[in-house]
């Protein structure tokens, strides 16, 4: 059992960015484990963690990444499950979305009820297409 390594693994999967901590340091490991148990993926996550050496946490990021790449090569489906869960937790986190909004103007809230502006369709773009002959085959 290597659950204690999960924080370090999450940090390697999504490193820190500016004022936003890496995925593990954001405290997402509990959420990932909860989701894994809820979605019957816990065995896959533990299979990945089980391959880690006992000193994984103390390794540098430059040493951790190739080690995880090797595990990904050996267990592609299990590792993909882990990555998907980390991405899901990270990009659902309020601080991450708020920072994204600050960088890009993206609305971090719900799409509804505000939506976005409905620009009218500019039919003049279709002028050359309207000159085309029928492109469909007649069938008797």
């Amino acid at each position, binding site marked *: 059992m290597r659950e204690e390594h999960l924080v370090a693994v999450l940090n390697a999967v999504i490193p820190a960015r500016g004022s936003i901590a890496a995925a593990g340091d954001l405290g997402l490991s509990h959420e990932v484990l909860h989701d894994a148990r809820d979605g019957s993926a816990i065995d896959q996550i533990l299979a990945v963690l089980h391959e880690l050496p006992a000193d994984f946490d103390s390794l540098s990021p430059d040493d951790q990444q190739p080690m995880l790449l090797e595990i990904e090569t050996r267990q592609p489906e299990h590792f993909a499950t882990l990555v998907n869960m980390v991405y899901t937790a990270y990009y659902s986190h*309020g601080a991450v979305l708020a920072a994204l909004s600050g960088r*890009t103007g993206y609305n971090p809230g719900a799409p509804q*009820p*505000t939506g976005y502006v409905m620009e009218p*369709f500019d039919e003049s773009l279709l002028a050359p297409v309207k000159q085309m002959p029928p492109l469909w085959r007649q069938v008797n």
Partner: protein
Amino acid sequence: MSQHCDRVDVVVVGAGAAGAALTWRLANHGVNVVCLEQGGWVTPESIPSLTPQWERARARSHHPNPNIRKNAWDYPIDDADSAIRPLMYNAVGGSTIAWGAHFPRLRPCDFAVHSLDGVGVDWPIGYDDLAAYFEVNDAMMTVAGLAGDPGNPPRGPRPCPPLPLGAGAQRIAEAYNRLGWHWWPVDAAILTGTDPHRSPCNNCGPCDLGCPRGARSSTDITYWHQAIAAGAQLRTQSRVVKIASVPGRATGVDYLDADGNLCHQPADHVVMAGNGVGTARLLLLSADDWCPDGLANSSDQVGRNLMHHPTGMVTGVFHEDLQGYEGPFATSIVSQEFYETDSSRGFVRGFQAQTIRSDGPLGTALGGYLPRLPWGRDHHTQFDRQFGHTASITVTTEDLPNPDNRVTLSPDITDAWGVAAPKINYRVEQRCADTIAFGIERNTEVLLAAGAHEILSLPLVESAGFHLLGTARMGENAASSVVDGQCRAHDAQNLWIVDGSVFPTSGAVNPTSTIQAIALRAADCLAEQPMLIGVLDA
């Protein structure tokens, strides 16, 4: 001991795209019709686009794959031997609850692929048999679009004006013009005009999660209210487990109600509208002494010839911020420049090129329609390059019938009630792979002409199993098909099948419009049956 319901003229199984349209039509003919739906109503308040966690819901609780979503009223699908993951939704509205609402029609050539191109089989009906029903259905589904497309037969004025293109589709449309290729704003089942009971689209984006405004059409808000007002009955949380029959006739259906009670609904006619997986599953589950291999299966075609639309995807990455997450993700423009057969390409039939907007932050990271973003030290750099900066074009190919692509009953997996789950065996044929390879090259040309500085492509989108077709195909020959051109089973003349399972071939466009037109036409045929004439006259 099962509970016995009063006899009805018609019992319909499934309240999705086809079941809703047919039930509405029958009710307006004065037919005594009841529809059984294993799911329930989806309330506007429950739709995830009202919450900041909408993308998380899309990845989990509202995923279109029932194996991931695992709603109480779903059934699992054994898809371990399928190259494409089947998707569906079980609720009033069926899979129109979780769709993008792209609403093209099959073209005339799609009904005669054997005669025209020497592959597949011809349909026993043609485009002209459905033309009037397409128009009725477009009005009911409040289709937005623009008449006059040279890529398709003429059609009436669209009920609503077209959707906005957005910056990405605008660039792609201009590129098509420079290349001299066809494009047109899509027909979309999305309200962009006015309606007394619904609010028009406000360009929010994730149509597949449902629409709390009621702008994106689904049959729970289009057909069902009117069907019920016309006298149809709709019983939700009613899971049909068997079509009861005697030699040559269906006699009704057995179903489990919300409390797990076994009920029997007798009917003069039984209509299956459970999609290309669910209908085949139920026909196979309905084996009896006189039909040991499944109901309506003397031809051994039930479950066979499963077709999807194998789809490749090409994505352009642009320097400009396109804000591609704004607007209905699946509906802007479509090109059918390469739809018809050109033998110089080395394969027959063609593809549809549908422009897709880009995704929210989680969707961008997870991929699906484009490769998943890398993890590790390059993650943030790649995220910044792609988020809001992409536009994609599909290569949607025409699948053709292959008897080895099929639905059977899983020997290992059951639903929550112990009923065998469907098992899918499916592989993509080489002709589709060749078409996708050709389409990726053409779409790459377009995206480069549109200004993309980087191209990403997927040769097969595994999660694109939206369209479930062919598993109870129509045909004139009872030895090689399951239903006739009216959708009536060869083996049981009062059993009708009206969903996508009756497609003999798939075309290369989204099928819902054609499925519903077929269902409306079948309703008119059914309503003319002798036993119902007295009802109609009354």
